[in-house]
């Protein structure tokens, strides 16, 4: 039986998250509390819009692994409140205030004399947690975290299925992601820690898959959610907008940009209100920043036209220099980082930052061998192409994913360079691995595609596309194992 998932419909979890996030922010911006009916409505909409096919993992060993990981994370999530700093003190605390029926007019949000650790943080995860806790209680609502981890595994598995990647490769890839210690072991950045990096990793993975497969509905929803998730979400949004037209689907890139523009236009005034600096935020700045994703898509699309490439690159350089000053006019979060990039970047620390990131990429105790496997897969596939003189492949190129990884790593480096000297050590130790964890879904998606090209596709020169898809289909039908 052909297991190919023919779906242009967005994933179930993405629809639910986007519905909750968008409607939740609208209600909060209008001064309303978040009612409990949001969650059932979101699930109903997601059920109607879900893709065809039964969600499942491939192979018994992978299923056992996933169940074991889910049970472990669920136990850690439900047994206690957040045991990690940011989860306890920021994201989940905001969720608890929302769950108490508070609106943005409540003292916690509106009174500048009331202590609020991170007033400018986006509200998507607190909204999700608030909704789940309204139905399941404060402890039960934390089932959200193992569900997000499960959704991340599906976010990697389902696009691989859509591309026709062999089921053994899918099983290996999901197993590899499920065994990344950072998510499954307790600690900062773990699935149950309450940090929003897992949610962001899920959204970024959905975004990467959407631009890879040209699925504009999913791309639009990702664009809508990214700025509402974390401050880094806006950075990933910009990356997707730039990479999509250059290396993948410009239509999906446009959809990401449109969703992102709507989200930024709605979120930036709310963020300014929460940071008590609404008077500092001009409507013009909001409009320009909201238009940035669309400008990036346009820039990428025009860059592909060779005739005007030099002019476009020049304009891009000028725009790139002007960009920090534009974003720096935002009174919180991204604005502050952009301002610091222009004036306070400590370029003398670039060696230390690069060395630390290099070490963390190979840090087995946290990230496993994720980035090492990716590097080895890239080398192996490249050498195989040299050996077999292959010109075609049955799965798309991983170039968009590598470009997204490159943008993500560059953003991490630039952000760390803007940290004050006394804080850099802390961010290098505690923050870098979490920023890199946001890219793990993309890493394993690329690994799955490369493993398929390396071990499944035919090595007959010139026949790769036809032979590979036929061979893969035969293997699936007969159940024969990989050679």
């Amino acid at each position, binding site marked *: 039986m052909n297991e190919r998932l023919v779906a242009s419909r967005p994933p179930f979890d993405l629809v639910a998250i986007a519905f909750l996030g968008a409607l939740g922010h609208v209600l909060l911006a209008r001064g309303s509390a978040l009612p409990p009916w949001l969650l059932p409505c979101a699930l109903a909409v997601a059920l109607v819009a879900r893709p065809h096919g039964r969600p499942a993992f491939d192979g018994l060993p992978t299923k056992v692994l996933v169940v*074991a*990981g889910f049970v*472990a994370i669920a*136990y*850690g999530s439900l*047994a*206690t*409140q957040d*045991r990690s*700093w940011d989860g*306890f*003190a*920021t994201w*989940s*605390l905001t969720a*608890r*205030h929302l769950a*108490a029926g508070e609106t943005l007019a409540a*003292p*916690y949000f509106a*009174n*500048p*004399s*009331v*202590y*609020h*650790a991170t007033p400018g943080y986006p509200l998507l995860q607190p909204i999700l947690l608030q909704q789940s806790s309204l139905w399941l209680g404060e402890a039960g609502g934390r089932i959200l975290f193992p569900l997000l981890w499960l959704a991340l595994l599906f976010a990697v598995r389902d696009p691989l299925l859509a591309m026709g990647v062999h089921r053994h490769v899918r099983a*290996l890839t999901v*197993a*590899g992601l*499920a*065994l*990344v*210690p950072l998510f*499954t*072991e*307790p600690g900062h950045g773990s699935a149950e820690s309450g940090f929003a990096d897992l949610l962001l990793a899920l959204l970024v993975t959905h975004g990467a898959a959407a631009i890879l497969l040209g699925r504009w509905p999913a791309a639009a929803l990702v664009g809508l959610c990214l700025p509402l998730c974390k401050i880094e979400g806006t950075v990933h949004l910009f990356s997707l907008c730039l990479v999509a037209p250059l290396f993948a689907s410009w239509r999906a890139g446009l959809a990401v940009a449109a969703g992102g523009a709507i989200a930024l236009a709605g979120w930036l005034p709310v963020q300014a209100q929460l940071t008590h600096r609404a008077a500092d935020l001009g409507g013009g700045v909001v409009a320009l920043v909201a238009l940035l994703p669309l400008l990036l898509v346009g820039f990428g699309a025009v860059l592909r036209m060779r005739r005007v490439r030099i002019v476009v690159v020049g304009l891009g350089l000028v725009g790139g220099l002007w960009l920090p000053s534009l974003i720096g006019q935002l009174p919180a979060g991204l604005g502050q980082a952009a301002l610091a990039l222009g004036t306070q970047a400590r370029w003398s620390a670039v060696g230390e930052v690069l060395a630390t990131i290099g070490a963390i990429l190979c840090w*087995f*105790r946290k990230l*496993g*061998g*994720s980035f*090492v*496997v990716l590097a*080895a*897969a890239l*080398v*192996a596939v490249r*050498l*195989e192409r*040299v*050996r077999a003189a292959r010109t075609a492949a049955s799965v798309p190129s991983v170039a968009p994913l590598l470009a997204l990884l490159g943008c993500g790593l560059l953003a991490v480096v630039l952000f760390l360079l803007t940290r004050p000297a006394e804080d850099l050590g802390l961010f290098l130790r505690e923050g870098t691995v979490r920023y890199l964890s946001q890219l793990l879904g993309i890493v394993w998606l690329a690994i799955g595609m490369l*493993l398929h090209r*390396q*071990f499944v596709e035919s090595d007959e020169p010139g026949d790769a596309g036809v032979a590979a898809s036929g061979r893969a289909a035969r293997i699936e039908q007969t159940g024969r194992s990989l050679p």
Partner: protein
Amino acid sequence: MIGPATQRNGDAAPRARWRRLWQWTRVAPAPLALVLVAHLYFGLARFPVGSVQKRLADVGNWHRLGADGWSFRLADEETQRIARWLRREVRPDQLVAYAGDSQGSMQLLAAVLFPALLVQAGSSSAWPAGRDVFRGRAPWLPAAAGSLPVVVATREALRLEYR
């Protein structure tokens, strides 16, 4: 036959070079398989200790210490005593005055005391109306002139003053 032989001899060296490269590239998948197996093995080997044992220990310690004890388990004794006392004495609808660094320990205290709120000591006119201000007296501190307990925070520690 000079032409074809010359041509054949001229092609022999590059062909041999490509054959050697081709043979070497055949083993390229081996490192990939090796690191993939290493990653899977490492994750599986760590699972019982990292995911199960460590999690059970953390959960057990959290229940033994409580939310305040767990949050401030790495802080000094005075900080732990202040957090414990405040968590016990402050009512959910009260305001607790604070001063000092807003990063670090203060972040955890705000979460520990939820739904009570922390308010800046110097801006009493802006404090939310309709809420009591906490005025408890810490039993281990000597009698002081002021009646308003103010939690003074640094990044690592909490101290209590009366103003």
